[in-house]
């Protein structure tokens, strides 16, 4: 009986936590649309280096997020979830992603926003493409898994761990660097 109740409670907790995903998604989508990041012209404008909206959004998000999350980590409120990687995975995968980023003009998050914004090229072309591309990867994954994807493996390390220093020894200079970069972009009128 108790066991069943625990199971039910766990299922409820699981559903409640999943629903938070929907809440965060609505807020994220709302912000992306207000920022113009759901638009092909804005994203490709960034890649053409003529419109710096996307970089401004990303750098402000990283600056704000980094300070808050490292503060909460220092206080013991949150833990980090760094992704593991390798040179073969992140460099080659990054470049293939970049080609797609420019051809499509949206990324996986902003394409969801673009669909909500009514953009049919995202819905009819891009979404189908991402589904096909992901499916091809799942098909070839066994062949890549222990070869190219493991070349230059460095695990799920963060910069403070890599340099073996206190978190804030990296957080503070990176924060200052991002701030200067943002000011420089703004002053340059980009």
């Amino acid at each position, binding site marked *: 009986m108790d066991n069943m109740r625990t199971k039910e409670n766990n299922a409820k907790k699981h559903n409640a936590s999943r629903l938070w995903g929907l809440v965060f998604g609505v807020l994220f989508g709302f912000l992306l649309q*207000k920022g113009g990041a759901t638009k092909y012209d804005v994203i490709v404008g960034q890649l053409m280096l003529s419109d710096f909206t996307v970089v401004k959004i990303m750098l402000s998000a990283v600056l704000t997020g980094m300070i808050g999350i490292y503060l909460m980590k220092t206080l013991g409120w949150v833990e980090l979830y760094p*992704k593991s990687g390798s040179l073969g995975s992140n460099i080659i995968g990054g470049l293939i992603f970049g080609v797609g980023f420019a051809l*499509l003009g949206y*990324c996986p998050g902003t394409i969801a926003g673009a669909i909500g914004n*009514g953009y049919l090229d995202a819905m009819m072309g891009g979404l189908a*493409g991402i589904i096909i591309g992901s499916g091809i990867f799942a098909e070839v994954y066994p062949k890549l898994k222990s070869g190219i994807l493991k070349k230059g493996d460095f695990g799920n390390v963060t910069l403070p761990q890599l340099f073996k220093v206190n978190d804030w020894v990296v957080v503070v200079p990176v924060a200052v660097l991002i701030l200067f970069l943002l000011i420089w972009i703004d002053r340059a009128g980009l």
Partner: protein
Amino acid sequence: MELLKEIRWSPYAVGIGIGVLSWFSFLISKEPISCSTSFARLSGVIERFFRGKQVELKPYYREIKLVLDWQGLLVMGIVIGSLISALLSGDFHLQLVPSLWATVFGNLPAPRLISALLGGACLGFGARWAGGCTSGHGISGTLQLTVSSWISAIFFFIGGILTAQILFKVIG
């Protein structure tokens, strides 16, 4: 309320908002904001619909599991949130060919749909190869100072900038 009806907010305000959102997703959900794996799951679910349960045994789908999880709902939420924002400001438009594309390649739907399809395929394939996308690596990963995410984010933009230059300045 007037603020919600504006078409555009300052990119800095939007970025700070996304940063604050990431605090709460770590704190409440213990999840960094990321999107691309959900498209791989959707791909697997579609394949399972046509080819049956055996699809779940593919090594990649064993790793990511074909379930509707927190991230899947996050991606659906993005569609809804963007729709709400666009409707509030009157910025919702059914549009097939974006204007920047049209100025260089013309107004025909087919070339744009083909580029979107091909681009989407590279994007989906590359996101899986790199283990994340512009949100999972580009925002959530870099803000954690993850090495794999900084490398990926830099190469997303190197690949993207080079391809955009070739597409618009050499081909276009």
